[in-house]
């Protein structure tokens, strides 16, 4: 579905992503793991076509990223991006206006389940509620590839469970999901692949089942063995 070859992104003299080469296969959930500033967000922003790579190549379904691919890739940024004058309902209408595949009813259903009123203005929402509303809109876009940047950040336990439920529902619709998180233990239960980032480099892409069979490690142990060493070094 996605092929990246020697993907590099520089912001001035700082290298945010260095020579990332990897494949993303459809119908799976990928966890993007690594410490802060390791290149996860930059990688997602490149896939979301919000930032252009300095060098390297990225293909989505065999073609370079384009206006068409923006229809098929939905990105949830860490920070809120909604216009301050918008209500939660307006946010859905905005998506409906520009993305023909957007399922407004699905968006409303998800919000209802999370007890978020459509009439609430975005500027009045707490961090958690803001994130939940934006996740609902991102998932309701019915995109082929969904990029969720730290969807559990600043969200309480119960809300996390609700978000996980929504993500798993989306997975059943055969969407491919990439999510970055620092909650390694929690994502272990439902992700199929893990991509480890460190200092802008992709250290390893591992299938969880194989990782457990071949290395006898779960995700947390693997994270420690890969990134703990780096930190010590």
């Amino acid at each position, binding site marked *: 579905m996605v092929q990246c070859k020697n993907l590099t992104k520089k912001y001035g003299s700082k290298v945010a992503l260095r020579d990332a080469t990897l494949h993303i296969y459809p119908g799976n959930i990928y966890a993007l793991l690594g410490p802060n500033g390791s290149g996860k967000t930059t990688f997602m922003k490149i896939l979301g076509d*919000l930032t252009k790579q300095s060098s390297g190549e990225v293909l989505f379904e065999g073609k370079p990223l384009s206006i*068409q691919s923006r229809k098929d890739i939905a990105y949830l940024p860490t920070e809120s*991006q909604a216009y301050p004058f918008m209500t939660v309902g307006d946010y859905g209408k905005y998506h409906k206006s520009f993305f023909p595949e957007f399922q407004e009813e699905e968006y409303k259903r998800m919000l209802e389940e999370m007890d978020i009123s459509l009439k609430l203005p975005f500027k009045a929402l707490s961090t958690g509620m803001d994130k939940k509303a934006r996740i609902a809109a991102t998932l309701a876009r019915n995109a082929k590839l969904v990029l969720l940047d730290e969807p559990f950040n600043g969200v309480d336990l119960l809300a996390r469970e609700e978000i996980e439920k929504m993500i798993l529902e989306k997975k059943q619709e055969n969407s491919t999901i990439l999510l970055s998180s620092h909650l390694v233990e929690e994502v272990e239960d439902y992700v199929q692949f893990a991509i480890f980032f460190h200092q802008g480099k992709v250290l390893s892409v591992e299938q969880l089942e194989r990782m457990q069979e071949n290395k006898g490690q779960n995700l947390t142990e693997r994270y420690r063995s890969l990134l703990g060493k780096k930190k010590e070094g």
Partner: protein
Amino acid sequence: MLTLLQYEMKKTAFMKILCGFALFISQAFVMLGTATDNYVVAGLGAGLLIFFSFLVIFILGLSSMASLSKDLNTTQGYMLFMLPKHSAYFLLAKIVESLVSTFLAGLVIVLIFFFNISYFAIDTEAYKDLLEMFWNLVMSGKGFGTLSLYMIRFLATAAAFWIFLSTMAILCVTVQASIFKGKALALVVSIIAFFCLFLYLFSALPELAANISWEYKDPIFYGMILVLSVGFFALSSYLLEKQRNF
């Protein structure tokens, strides 16, 4: 395009409300001063009204550029740049919004001034004469009337300059937010670049026009403004598509 335009209008709504409020307060001072025969208050109101009439036009133009700068430098921009549309649409929506807002503000200001002229023209016969004189001037000459043509030409020139300035400002903001993003003093440098470009072009264009014979002056002048505006616009759109740097 209409939906984009709608959202652009909403983004700058606060500034529009503020401008409307400033005009309203000034007019209220004029009315209050005349109603109470307090000519100091009336004079103050009239002064403020003239001052804000110019300022409102300037602020509305600036607020569109400020909105573009916000879109390019904060996460709010994700709302636009994640959409499956070419960046040219977003820029076009901003230019149209700026043009429509300024035109409507100009219209409101003209209406306020006409209202004041008619309201304070105690001698209604004189006012009738004034209107008749104006009407005759508008309709005099061949066809539509010479004054009408001058007015249309004035509006067309104002609109052309507005678009020219907008596209030039858009280019500066875009260069700052794409190529020089994150660099120290990028915004200051882009503002200075805008004024330098503005001063250079405005001194170069009349010089160039002076060497052209009278009958070709208008089409060449408008043509040059059009070519430069389209060039600035195309370059900005290209940078936003190919050098995105969020």
